[in-house]
Protein backbone atom coordinates (compact mmCIF):
# COMPACT_ATOMS: atom_id res chain seq x y z
CA UNK A 1 0.00 0.00 0.00
CA UNK A 2 2.79 2.38 1.01
CA UNK A 3 4.74 1.48 -2.13
CA UNK A 4 1.67 2.08 -4.32
CA UNK A 5 1.17 5.52 -2.76
CA UNK A 6 4.85 6.34 -3.21
CA UNK A 7 4.72 5.21 -6.85
CA UNK A 8 1.75 7.48 -7.53
CA UNK A 9 3.37 10.34 -5.64
CA UNK A 10 6.48 10.13 -7.85
CA UNK A 11 4.37 9.91 -10.99
CA UNK A 12 2.22 12.90 -9.95
CA UNK A 13 5.36 14.87 -9.04
CA UNK A 14 6.83 14.09 -12.48
CA UNK A 15 3.67 15.31 -14.25
CA UNK A 16 3.35 18.46 -12.09
CA UNK A 17 6.97 19.58 -11.85
CA UNK A 18 8.84 17.56 -14.50
CA UNK A 19 6.58 17.70 -17.56
CA UNK A 20 4.35 20.56 -16.49
CA UNK A 21 4.24 23.67 -14.36
CA UNK A 22 1.48 22.66 -11.97
CA UNK A 23 1.69 24.19 -8.52
CA UNK A 24 -0.54 26.09 -6.12
CA UNK A 25 0.94 29.32 -7.52
CA UNK A 26 0.28 28.45 -11.18
CA UNK A 27 -3.29 27.30 -10.39
CA UNK A 28 -3.91 30.55 -8.50
CA UNK A 29 -2.45 32.75 -11.24
CA UNK A 30 -4.36 31.05 -14.07
CA UNK A 31 -7.61 31.06 -12.07
CA UNK A 32 -7.12 34.76 -11.28
CA UNK A 33 -6.45 35.58 -14.93
CA UNK A 34 -9.48 33.59 -16.12
CA UNK A 35 -11.65 35.20 -13.42
CA UNK A 36 -10.67 38.72 -14.52
CA UNK A 37 -11.28 37.79 -18.17
CA UNK A 38 -14.66 36.27 -17.29
CA UNK A 39 -15.66 39.50 -15.56
CA UNK A 40 -15.11 41.43 -18.78
CA UNK A 41 -16.76 38.83 -20.99
CA UNK A 42 -19.76 37.96 -18.84
CA UNK A 43 -20.50 41.13 -16.94
CA UNK A 44 -21.29 44.25 -18.92
CA UNK A 45 -21.41 46.26 -15.71
CA UNK A 46 -17.76 45.83 -14.83
CA UNK A 47 -16.54 48.80 -16.89
CA UNK A 48 -19.18 51.28 -15.56
CA UNK A 49 -18.43 49.91 -12.09
CA UNK A 50 -14.71 50.57 -12.50
CA UNK A 51 -15.44 54.07 -13.84
CA UNK A 52 -17.91 54.66 -11.02
CA UNK A 53 -15.42 53.51 -8.41
CA UNK A 54 -12.81 55.89 -9.72
CA UNK A 55 -15.15 58.81 -10.40
CA UNK A 56 -18.86 58.70 -9.61
CA UNK A 57 -19.33 62.04 -11.36
CA UNK A 58 -19.05 60.03 -14.59
CA UNK A 59 -22.75 59.25 -14.11
CA UNK A 60 -25.18 61.92 -15.35
CA UNK A 61 -27.01 62.17 -12.04
CA UNK A 62 -27.25 60.60 -8.60
CA UNK A 63 -30.43 58.84 -9.73
CA UNK A 64 -28.58 57.20 -12.61
CA UNK A 65 -25.82 56.20 -10.24
CA UNK A 66 -28.43 54.73 -7.86
CA UNK A 67 -30.18 52.87 -10.68
CA UNK A 68 -26.83 51.46 -11.74
CA UNK A 69 -25.93 50.31 -8.22
CA UNK A 70 -29.38 48.84 -7.62
CA UNK A 71 -29.21 46.89 -10.82
CA UNK A 72 -25.71 45.65 -10.13
CA UNK A 73 -25.85 41.94 -10.75
CA UNK A 74 -22.65 40.11 -10.03
CA UNK A 75 -23.77 36.62 -10.90
CA UNK A 76 -21.04 35.48 -13.24
CA UNK A 77 -22.09 32.20 -14.85
CA UNK A 78 -18.69 31.83 -16.50
CA UNK A 79 -17.12 31.16 -13.09
CA UNK A 80 -18.42 27.60 -13.45
CA UNK A 81 -16.09 26.91 -16.38
CA UNK A 82 -13.02 28.64 -14.88
CA UNK A 83 -11.83 25.55 -12.92
CA UNK A 84 -12.30 23.37 -16.00
CA UNK A 85 -10.41 25.77 -18.29
CA UNK A 86 -7.67 26.24 -15.70
CA UNK A 87 -7.13 22.46 -15.47
CA UNK A 88 -7.09 22.10 -19.27
CA UNK A 89 -4.48 24.87 -19.62
CA UNK A 90 -2.26 23.26 -16.98
CA UNK A 91 -2.51 19.76 -18.46
CA UNK A 92 -1.72 20.62 -22.09
CA UNK A 93 2.05 20.63 -21.54
CA UNK A 94 2.39 17.34 -19.61
CA UNK A 95 0.14 15.65 -22.18
CA UNK A 96 2.27 16.96 -25.06
CA UNK A 97 5.33 15.57 -23.28
CA UNK A 98 3.65 12.15 -23.17
CA UNK A 99 3.47 12.31 -26.95
CA UNK A 100 6.80 13.78 -27.95
CA UNK A 101 9.41 13.49 -25.19
CA UNK A 102 11.44 10.25 -25.42
CA UNK A 103 12.48 10.43 -21.75
CA UNK A 104 8.86 10.71 -20.74
CA UNK A 105 7.68 7.93 -23.00
CA UNK A 106 10.19 5.39 -21.73
CA UNK A 107 9.77 6.19 -18.03
CA UNK A 108 9.09 2.97 -16.15
CA UNK A 109 5.58 3.87 -15.02
CA UNK A 110 2.73 1.49 -15.81
CA UNK A 111 0.08 2.98 -18.14
CA UNK A 112 -2.65 2.49 -15.52
CA UNK A 113 -0.58 4.38 -12.95
CA UNK A 114 -0.12 7.26 -15.41
CA UNK A 115 -3.88 7.36 -16.00
CA UNK A 116 -4.56 7.40 -12.24
CA UNK A 117 -1.98 10.17 -11.72
CA UNK A 118 -3.58 12.32 -14.41
CA UNK A 119 -7.04 11.80 -12.86
CA UNK A 120 -5.79 12.77 -9.40
CA UNK A 121 -4.23 15.93 -10.88
CA UNK A 122 -7.44 16.82 -12.75
CA UNK A 123 -9.52 16.43 -9.57
CA UNK A 124 -6.97 18.31 -7.45
CA UNK A 125 -6.57 21.23 -9.87
CA UNK A 126 -10.33 21.54 -10.37
CA UNK A 127 -11.08 21.58 -6.62
CA UNK A 128 -8.30 24.09 -5.87
CA UNK A 129 -9.45 26.31 -8.74
CA UNK A 130 -13.09 26.12 -7.56
CA UNK A 131 -11.93 27.10 -4.07
CA UNK A 132 -9.89 30.06 -5.38
CA UNK A 133 -12.72 31.21 -7.70
CA UNK A 134 -15.21 31.05 -4.84
CA UNK A 135 -12.87 32.92 -2.53
CA UNK A 136 -12.18 35.61 -5.14
CA UNK A 137 -15.84 36.04 -5.96
CA UNK A 138 -16.79 36.15 -2.30
CA UNK A 139 -14.07 38.70 -1.49
CA UNK A 140 -15.01 41.00 -4.39
CA UNK A 141 -18.72 40.87 -3.55
CA UNK A 142 -18.11 41.48 0.14
CA UNK A 143 -15.83 44.40 -0.73
CA UNK A 144 -18.43 45.93 -3.07
CA UNK A 145 -21.21 45.46 -0.54
CA UNK A 146 -19.19 46.98 2.28
CA UNK A 147 -18.13 49.90 0.07
CA UNK A 148 -21.43 50.74 -1.62
CA UNK A 149 -24.24 49.40 0.58
CA UNK A 150 -24.42 52.50 2.78
CA UNK A 151 -24.13 54.70 -0.29
CA UNK A 152 -27.14 52.92 -1.83
CA UNK A 153 -29.13 53.51 1.37
CA UNK A 154 -28.13 57.19 1.47
CA UNK A 155 -29.02 57.68 -2.20
CA UNK A 156 -32.39 55.98 -1.66
CA UNK A 157 -33.11 58.16 1.37
CA UNK A 158 -32.17 61.26 -0.61
CA UNK A 159 -34.95 60.55 -3.12
CA UNK A 160 -37.42 59.62 -0.37
CA UNK A 161 -37.34 55.86 -0.67
CA UNK A 162 -37.02 54.94 3.00
CA UNK A 163 -38.53 51.48 2.93
CA UNK A 164 -37.65 50.24 -0.55
CA UNK A 165 -38.16 46.53 -0.73
CA UNK A 166 -34.79 45.08 -1.78
CA UNK A 167 -35.23 41.37 -2.29
CA UNK A 168 -34.45 41.26 -5.97
CA UNK A 169 -32.80 37.90 -6.16
CA UNK A 170 -29.32 37.91 -7.60
CA UNK A 171 -28.68 41.64 -7.29
CA UNK A 172 -25.66 42.65 -5.27
CA UNK A 173 -27.49 45.03 -2.92
CA UNK A 174 -30.62 42.99 -2.31
CA UNK A 175 -31.10 41.89 1.31
CA UNK A 176 -31.32 38.18 0.54
CA UNK A 177 -28.25 38.19 -1.65
CA UNK A 178 -26.10 35.05 -1.41
CA UNK A 179 -22.42 35.70 -1.91
CA UNK A 180 -21.73 32.04 -2.63
CA UNK A 181 -21.04 30.99 -6.14
CA UNK A 182 -22.98 28.55 -8.26
CA UNK A 183 -19.81 26.48 -8.48
CA UNK A 184 -19.96 25.56 -4.79
CA UNK A 185 -23.54 24.39 -5.22
CA UNK A 186 -22.66 22.23 -8.20
CA UNK A 187 -19.30 20.86 -7.11
CA UNK A 188 -19.95 17.29 -8.25
CA UNK A 189 -21.30 18.40 -11.65
CA UNK A 190 -18.25 20.62 -12.26
CA UNK A 191 -15.93 17.79 -11.23
CA UNK A 192 -17.62 15.37 -13.64
CA UNK A 193 -17.54 17.98 -16.40
CA UNK A 194 -13.88 18.74 -15.71
CA UNK A 195 -12.96 15.04 -15.81
CA UNK A 196 -14.82 14.58 -19.10
CA UNK A 197 -13.42 17.74 -20.76
CA UNK A 198 -9.85 17.13 -19.61
CA UNK A 199 -9.74 13.47 -20.62
CA UNK A 200 -11.29 14.48 -23.94
CA UNK A 201 -8.51 17.06 -24.54
CA UNK A 202 -5.83 14.55 -23.44
CA UNK A 203 -7.22 12.04 -25.95
CA UNK A 204 -7.23 14.65 -28.71
CA UNK A 205 -3.61 15.62 -27.99
CA UNK A 206 -2.49 12.01 -28.05
CA UNK A 207 -4.62 11.15 -31.06
CA UNK A 208 -3.67 13.95 -33.43
CA UNK A 209 -0.05 14.78 -34.23
CA UNK A 210 -0.53 18.51 -34.98
CA UNK A 211 -3.17 21.15 -34.10
CA UNK A 212 -4.77 18.49 -31.91
CA UNK A 213 -7.08 20.76 -29.91
CA UNK A 214 -8.40 22.55 -33.02
CA UNK A 215 -8.93 19.20 -34.78
CA UNK A 216 -10.60 17.75 -31.68
CA UNK A 217 -12.96 20.70 -31.29
CA UNK A 218 -13.78 20.56 -35.02
CA UNK A 219 -14.58 16.87 -34.61
CA UNK A 220 -16.92 17.56 -31.68
CA UNK A 221 -18.64 20.42 -33.52
CA UNK A 222 -19.13 18.15 -36.55
CA UNK A 223 -20.58 15.37 -34.40
CA UNK A 224 -22.86 17.85 -32.60
CA UNK A 225 -23.98 19.31 -35.94
CA UNK A 226 -24.88 15.85 -37.25
CA UNK A 227 -26.59 14.99 -33.95
CA UNK A 228 -28.70 18.17 -34.04
CA UNK A 229 -29.52 17.61 -37.70
CA UNK A 230 -30.63 14.04 -36.99
CA UNK A 231 -32.57 15.14 -33.91
CA UNK A 232 -34.42 17.84 -35.87
CA UNK A 233 -35.13 15.42 -38.72
CA UNK A 234 -36.49 12.88 -36.23
CA UNK A 235 -38.70 15.49 -34.58
CA UNK A 236 -40.12 16.49 -37.99
CA UNK A 237 -40.73 12.85 -38.84
CA UNK A 238 -42.60 12.49 -35.54
CA UNK A 239 -45.16 15.23 -36.39
CA UNK A 240 -43.18 18.15 -34.94
CA UNK A 241 -43.43 16.91 -31.40
CA UNK A 242 -41.92 19.22 -28.78
CA UNK A 243 -39.16 18.01 -26.47
CA UNK A 244 -39.29 19.25 -22.95
CA UNK A 245 -36.00 19.55 -21.07
CA UNK A 246 -36.71 18.66 -17.47
CA UNK A 247 -34.42 18.56 -14.44
CA UNK A 248 -34.56 14.78 -14.81
CA UNK A 249 -32.98 15.13 -18.26
CA UNK A 250 -30.13 17.22 -16.82
CA UNK A 251 -29.51 14.68 -14.08
CA UNK A 252 -29.45 11.90 -16.66
CA UNK A 253 -26.75 13.76 -18.58
CA UNK A 254 -24.63 14.45 -15.49
CA UNK A 255 -24.97 11.18 -13.65
CA UNK A 256 -25.43 8.62 -16.43
CA UNK A 257 -24.19 9.83 -19.83
CA UNK A 258 -21.16 11.78 -18.61
CA UNK A 259 -19.81 8.96 -16.39
CA UNK A 260 -20.23 6.48 -19.29
CA UNK A 261 -18.47 8.92 -21.63
CA UNK A 262 -15.77 9.44 -18.98
CA UNK A 263 -15.13 5.69 -18.62
CA UNK A 264 -14.84 5.37 -22.43
CA UNK A 265 -12.37 8.29 -22.50
CA UNK A 266 -10.28 6.74 -19.71
CA UNK A 267 -10.10 3.47 -21.64
CA UNK A 268 -9.12 5.37 -24.76
CA UNK A 269 -6.40 7.26 -22.80
CA UNK A 270 -5.06 3.97 -21.39
CA UNK A 271 -4.86 2.30 -24.80
CA UNK A 272 -3.30 5.39 -26.39
CA UNK A 273 -0.55 5.23 -23.75
CA UNK A 274 -0.06 1.55 -24.49
CA UNK A 275 -0.19 1.76 -28.27
CA UNK A 276 0.57 5.27 -29.50
CA UNK A 277 3.66 5.38 -31.74
CA UNK A 278 5.58 8.38 -33.01
Amino acid at each position, binding site marked *: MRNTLKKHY*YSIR*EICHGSGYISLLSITLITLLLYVLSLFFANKQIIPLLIGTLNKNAFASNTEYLIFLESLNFNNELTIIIPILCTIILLVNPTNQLKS*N*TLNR*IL*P*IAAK*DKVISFLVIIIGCTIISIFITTLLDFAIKQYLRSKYFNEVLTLQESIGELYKYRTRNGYLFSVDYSPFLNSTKHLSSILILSLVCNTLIINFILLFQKYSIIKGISLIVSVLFIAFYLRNSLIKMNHNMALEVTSYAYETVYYIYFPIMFICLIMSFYFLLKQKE*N
Partner: protein
Amino acid sequence: MITINNLGFYYKKEKPIVKSISTQLQSGKIYGLLGLNGEGKTTLLKLLAGLLFPKTGVITIDNKFPSTERSKEYFEQLYMVPDQPTSSALHIPEFIKIYSIFYKDFSHQLFEEALIAFNIPPKSKIKSLSFGQQKKFHLAFALATNTKLLLLDEPTNGLDIPSKAIFRKLLAKVTDDEKIIIISTHLVHDIENLIDHVLIIKEGLLVLDSNINAILQLYSFGYTSMLTDDILYSEKSIANYKTIRHNQDNRETAIDIELLFNAIQDQKL
Protein backbone atom coordinates in the same frame (compact mmCIF):
# COMPACT_ATOMS: atom_id res chain seq x y z
CA MET B 1 19.91 -10.99 -23.68
CA ILE B 2 17.72 -9.28 -26.22
CA THR B 3 16.09 -11.40 -28.87
CA ILE B 4 14.99 -9.85 -32.13
CA ASN B 5 13.02 -12.27 -34.22
CA ASN B 6 11.90 -11.61 -37.80
CA LEU B 7 11.54 -7.89 -37.11
CA GLY B 8 9.83 -5.82 -39.77
CA PHE B 9 8.61 -2.23 -39.78
CA TYR B 10 7.19 0.26 -42.27
CA TYR B 11 5.30 3.53 -42.27
CA LYS B 12 4.05 2.82 -45.80
CA LYS B 13 3.66 -0.83 -46.74
CA GLU B 14 5.29 -0.36 -50.14
CA LYS B 15 8.35 1.26 -48.54
CA PRO B 16 9.57 -0.97 -45.68
CA ILE B 17 12.23 0.52 -43.40
CA VAL B 18 13.18 -2.63 -41.49
CA LYS B 19 12.83 -5.99 -43.26
CA SER B 20 12.96 -9.24 -41.39
CA ILE B 21 15.83 -8.65 -38.94
CA SER B 22 16.69 -11.49 -36.58
CA THR B 23 19.54 -11.45 -34.09
CA GLN B 24 20.42 -11.88 -30.45
CA LEU B 25 22.12 -9.09 -28.52
CA GLN B 26 24.33 -10.50 -25.79
CA SER B 27 24.91 -8.95 -22.38
CA GLY B 28 28.28 -7.38 -21.67
CA LYS B 29 28.81 -6.04 -25.19
CA ILE B 30 28.87 -2.67 -26.86
CA TYR B 31 27.23 -2.76 -30.29
CA GLY B 32 27.96 -0.27 -33.04
CA LEU B 33 24.92 0.22 -35.25
CA LEU B 34 25.92 1.66 -38.62
CA GLY B 35 24.09 2.53 -41.79
CA LEU B 36 23.50 5.30 -44.29
CA ASN B 37 20.93 8.03 -43.62
CA GLY B 38 17.38 6.69 -43.78
CA GLU B 39 18.44 3.05 -43.65
CA GLY B 40 16.56 2.43 -40.40
CA LYS B 41 19.07 2.87 -37.56
CA THR B 42 16.92 5.23 -35.48
CA THR B 43 13.83 3.18 -36.33
CA LEU B 44 15.55 0.05 -34.99
CA LEU B 45 16.49 1.90 -31.78
CA LYS B 46 12.90 3.14 -31.40
CA LEU B 47 11.62 -0.40 -31.94
CA LEU B 48 14.00 -1.63 -29.24
CA ALA B 49 12.85 1.16 -26.91
CA GLY B 50 9.20 0.24 -27.43
CA LEU B 51 8.46 3.64 -28.98
CA LEU B 52 7.45 1.91 -32.22
CA PHE B 53 5.76 -1.45 -32.64
CA PRO B 54 7.03 -4.07 -35.10
CA LYS B 55 4.74 -4.76 -38.04
CA THR B 56 6.15 -8.27 -38.04
CA GLY B 57 8.22 -10.19 -35.51
CA VAL B 58 8.94 -9.56 -31.87
CA ILE B 59 11.58 -8.06 -29.54
CA THR B 60 11.98 -9.49 -26.05
CA ILE B 61 14.30 -8.85 -23.13
CA ASP B 62 15.45 -12.11 -21.48
CA ASN B 63 12.62 -13.86 -23.37
CA LYS B 64 10.21 -12.43 -20.80
CA PHE B 65 9.18 -8.90 -21.67
CA PRO B 66 7.98 -8.17 -25.23
CA SER B 67 8.49 -4.56 -26.35
CA THR B 68 4.87 -4.24 -27.50
CA GLU B 69 3.58 -4.71 -23.94
CA ARG B 70 5.20 -1.41 -22.91
CA SER B 71 5.19 -2.75 -19.39
CA LYS B 72 6.87 -1.04 -16.46
CA GLU B 73 9.18 -4.07 -16.28
CA TYR B 74 10.30 -3.58 -19.89
CA PHE B 75 10.99 0.13 -19.45
CA GLU B 76 12.87 -0.51 -16.20
CA GLN B 77 15.48 -2.35 -18.25
CA LEU B 78 16.24 0.38 -20.78
CA TYR B 79 17.17 3.98 -21.34
CA MET B 80 17.48 5.80 -24.64
CA VAL B 81 19.22 9.06 -25.51
CA PRO B 82 17.81 10.39 -28.78
CA ASP B 83 19.90 12.37 -31.26
CA GLN B 84 18.25 15.58 -30.06
CA PRO B 85 16.99 15.18 -26.50
CA THR B 86 14.08 17.38 -25.44
CA SER B 87 15.19 20.35 -23.41
CA SER B 88 13.88 20.81 -19.89
CA ALA B 89 13.10 23.99 -17.96
CA LEU B 90 14.27 22.32 -14.75
CA HIS B 91 17.56 22.87 -12.93
CA ILE B 92 19.84 19.81 -12.84
CA PRO B 93 19.22 18.97 -9.11
CA GLU B 94 15.43 19.18 -9.63
CA PHE B 95 15.65 16.98 -12.73
CA ILE B 96 17.66 14.38 -10.85
CA LYS B 97 15.28 14.46 -7.88
CA ILE B 98 12.25 13.90 -10.13
CA TYR B 99 13.59 11.41 -12.67
CA SER B 100 16.33 9.38 -10.97
CA ILE B 101 13.78 7.85 -8.58
CA PHE B 102 12.34 5.77 -11.44
CA TYR B 103 15.62 3.91 -11.97
CA LYS B 104 16.36 1.68 -9.00
CA ASP B 105 20.11 1.34 -9.76
CA PHE B 106 20.66 5.03 -10.47
CA SER B 107 24.17 6.02 -9.39
CA HIS B 108 24.28 9.59 -8.05
CA GLN B 109 28.02 9.24 -7.62
CA LEU B 110 28.56 8.30 -11.26
CA PHE B 111 26.27 11.11 -12.39
CA GLU B 112 28.23 13.69 -10.36
CA GLU B 113 31.53 12.31 -11.66
CA ALA B 114 30.25 12.53 -15.23
CA LEU B 115 29.08 16.12 -14.76
CA ILE B 116 32.48 17.08 -13.35
CA ALA B 117 34.26 15.26 -16.19
CA PHE B 118 32.08 16.99 -18.79
CA ASN B 119 32.61 20.30 -17.00
CA ILE B 120 28.90 21.05 -16.58
CA PRO B 121 27.94 23.34 -13.67
CA PRO B 122 25.92 20.98 -11.43
CA LYS B 123 23.23 23.48 -10.49
CA SER B 124 22.59 24.99 -13.90
CA LYS B 125 19.26 25.27 -15.63
CA ILE B 126 19.12 22.62 -18.37
CA LYS B 127 17.48 24.92 -20.93
CA SER B 128 20.22 27.52 -20.50
CA LEU B 129 22.95 25.02 -21.44
CA SER B 130 24.25 24.87 -25.02
CA PHE B 131 23.17 21.97 -27.29
CA GLY B 132 26.44 20.12 -26.67
CA GLN B 133 26.23 20.64 -22.90
CA GLN B 134 22.62 19.40 -22.86
CA LYS B 135 23.72 16.34 -24.80
CA LYS B 136 26.50 15.73 -22.27
CA PHE B 137 24.02 16.14 -19.40
CA HIS B 138 21.66 13.59 -20.98
CA LEU B 139 24.55 11.19 -21.60
CA ALA B 140 25.64 11.55 -17.97
CA PHE B 141 22.08 10.81 -16.83
CA ALA B 142 21.79 7.83 -19.21
CA LEU B 143 25.05 6.29 -17.99
CA ALA B 144 24.02 6.82 -14.36
CA THR B 145 20.68 5.02 -14.79
CA ASN B 146 22.58 1.71 -14.94
CA THR B 147 19.86 0.10 -17.00
CA LYS B 148 20.45 -3.23 -18.66
CA LEU B 149 19.93 -1.87 -22.18
CA LEU B 150 21.34 1.51 -23.13
CA LEU B 151 20.40 2.91 -26.53
CA LEU B 152 22.44 5.88 -27.74
CA ASP B 153 21.48 7.59 -30.98
CA GLU B 154 24.40 9.65 -32.34
CA PRO B 155 25.85 10.20 -28.84
CA THR B 156 28.96 12.07 -29.99
CA ASN B 157 27.07 14.38 -32.35
CA GLY B 158 27.47 17.93 -30.98
CA LEU B 159 30.22 17.01 -28.52
CA ASP B 160 33.53 18.89 -28.56
CA ILE B 161 36.74 16.88 -29.12
CA PRO B 162 37.79 16.46 -25.43
CA SER B 163 34.21 15.48 -24.50
CA LYS B 164 34.26 12.63 -27.02
CA ALA B 165 37.25 11.13 -25.22
CA ILE B 166 35.57 11.70 -21.83
CA PHE B 167 32.43 10.00 -23.12
CA ARG B 168 34.48 6.99 -24.25
CA LYS B 169 36.13 6.77 -20.82
CA LEU B 170 32.78 6.98 -19.00
CA LEU B 171 31.20 4.41 -21.29
CA ALA B 172 34.10 2.03 -20.72
CA LYS B 173 33.67 2.58 -16.97
CA VAL B 174 29.96 1.69 -16.85
CA THR B 175 30.24 -1.36 -19.10
CA ASP B 176 29.79 -4.63 -17.25
CA ASP B 177 28.72 -8.21 -17.94
CA GLU B 178 25.02 -7.39 -17.49
CA LYS B 179 24.71 -4.43 -19.83
CA ILE B 180 24.00 -4.18 -23.53
CA ILE B 181 24.94 -0.85 -25.08
CA ILE B 182 23.89 -0.02 -28.62
CA ILE B 183 25.43 3.03 -30.25
CA SER B 184 24.02 4.26 -33.52
CA THR B 185 26.40 6.67 -35.22
CA HIS B 186 27.88 8.06 -38.38
CA LEU B 187 31.00 9.18 -36.56
CA VAL B 188 32.56 5.72 -36.40
CA HIS B 189 36.03 6.96 -35.43
CA ASP B 190 34.56 8.29 -32.17
CA ILE B 191 33.63 4.81 -31.00
CA GLU B 192 35.92 2.57 -33.03
CA ASN B 193 38.00 1.43 -30.07
CA LEU B 194 34.99 0.81 -27.85
CA ILE B 195 32.72 -1.48 -29.77
CA ASP B 196 32.76 -5.27 -29.54
CA HIS B 197 30.26 -5.98 -32.24
CA VAL B 198 29.26 -4.32 -35.51
CA LEU B 199 25.72 -4.21 -36.89
CA ILE B 200 25.35 -2.70 -40.36
CA ILE B 201 21.91 -1.98 -41.76
CA LYS B 202 21.46 -1.64 -45.48
CA GLU B 203 18.09 -1.31 -47.19
CA GLY B 204 16.36 -2.47 -44.02
CA LEU B 205 18.39 -5.65 -43.68
CA LEU B 206 21.16 -6.49 -41.25
CA VAL B 207 23.97 -7.08 -43.76
CA LEU B 208 26.65 -7.44 -41.11
CA ASP B 209 26.12 -8.81 -37.60
CA SER B 210 29.52 -9.82 -36.36
CA ASN B 211 31.89 -9.25 -33.50
CA ILE B 212 35.18 -7.47 -34.09
CA ASN B 213 37.32 -10.58 -33.44
CA ALA B 214 35.40 -12.61 -36.00
CA ILE B 215 35.82 -9.82 -38.57
CA LEU B 216 39.57 -9.64 -37.88
CA GLN B 217 39.88 -13.42 -38.25
CA LEU B 218 38.30 -13.16 -41.70
CA TYR B 219 39.86 -9.96 -42.96
CA SER B 220 43.07 -8.01 -42.48
CA PHE B 221 43.20 -4.25 -42.70
CA GLY B 222 46.30 -2.44 -43.91
CA TYR B 223 47.99 -0.02 -46.25
CA THR B 224 49.69 -0.60 -49.59
CA SER B 225 51.23 1.47 -52.34
CA MET B 226 50.53 -1.16 -55.03
CA LEU B 227 47.12 -2.66 -55.74
CA THR B 228 47.19 -6.44 -56.12
CA ASP B 229 44.60 -9.06 -57.03
CA ASP B 230 44.17 -10.37 -53.48
CA ILE B 231 42.80 -7.01 -52.27
CA LEU B 232 39.07 -7.23 -51.68
CA TYR B 233 38.52 -3.51 -51.23
CA SER B 234 40.71 -0.43 -51.35
CA GLU B 235 40.42 3.29 -50.87
CA LYS B 236 42.92 5.92 -51.91
CA SER B 237 44.46 7.73 -48.97
CA ILE B 238 47.03 10.56 -49.04
CA ALA B 239 50.17 8.57 -49.87
CA ASN B 240 48.89 5.07 -50.49
CA TYR B 241 45.84 2.79 -50.38
CA LYS B 242 43.85 1.54 -47.37
CA THR B 243 43.02 -2.10 -48.03
CA ILE B 244 40.97 -5.05 -46.88
CA ARG B 245 42.18 -8.59 -47.73
CA HIS B 246 41.33 -12.09 -46.64
CA ASN B 247 43.29 -12.84 -43.48
CA GLN B 248 44.93 -15.98 -44.79
CA ASP B 249 48.01 -15.86 -42.58
CA ASN B 250 46.11 -14.95 -39.33
CA ARG B 251 47.76 -11.59 -39.03
CA GLU B 252 46.61 -9.30 -36.19
CA THR B 253 45.53 -5.96 -37.59
CA ALA B 254 43.49 -3.07 -36.24
CA ILE B 255 40.00 -2.75 -37.61
CA ASP B 256 39.07 0.25 -39.75
CA ILE B 257 35.31 0.35 -39.36
CA GLU B 258 34.85 3.14 -41.86
CA LEU B 259 36.68 1.12 -44.52
CA LEU B 260 34.69 -1.98 -43.61
CA PHE B 261 31.44 -0.01 -43.82
CA ASN B 262 32.35 1.43 -47.24
CA ALA B 263 33.34 -2.03 -48.52
CA ILE B 264 29.97 -3.41 -47.48
CA GLN B 265 28.15 -0.47 -49.07
CA ASP B 266 30.05 -1.21 -52.30
CA GLN B 267 29.13 -4.90 -51.97
CA LYS B 268 32.81 -5.91 -52.02
CA LEU B 269 32.53 -8.08 -48.91
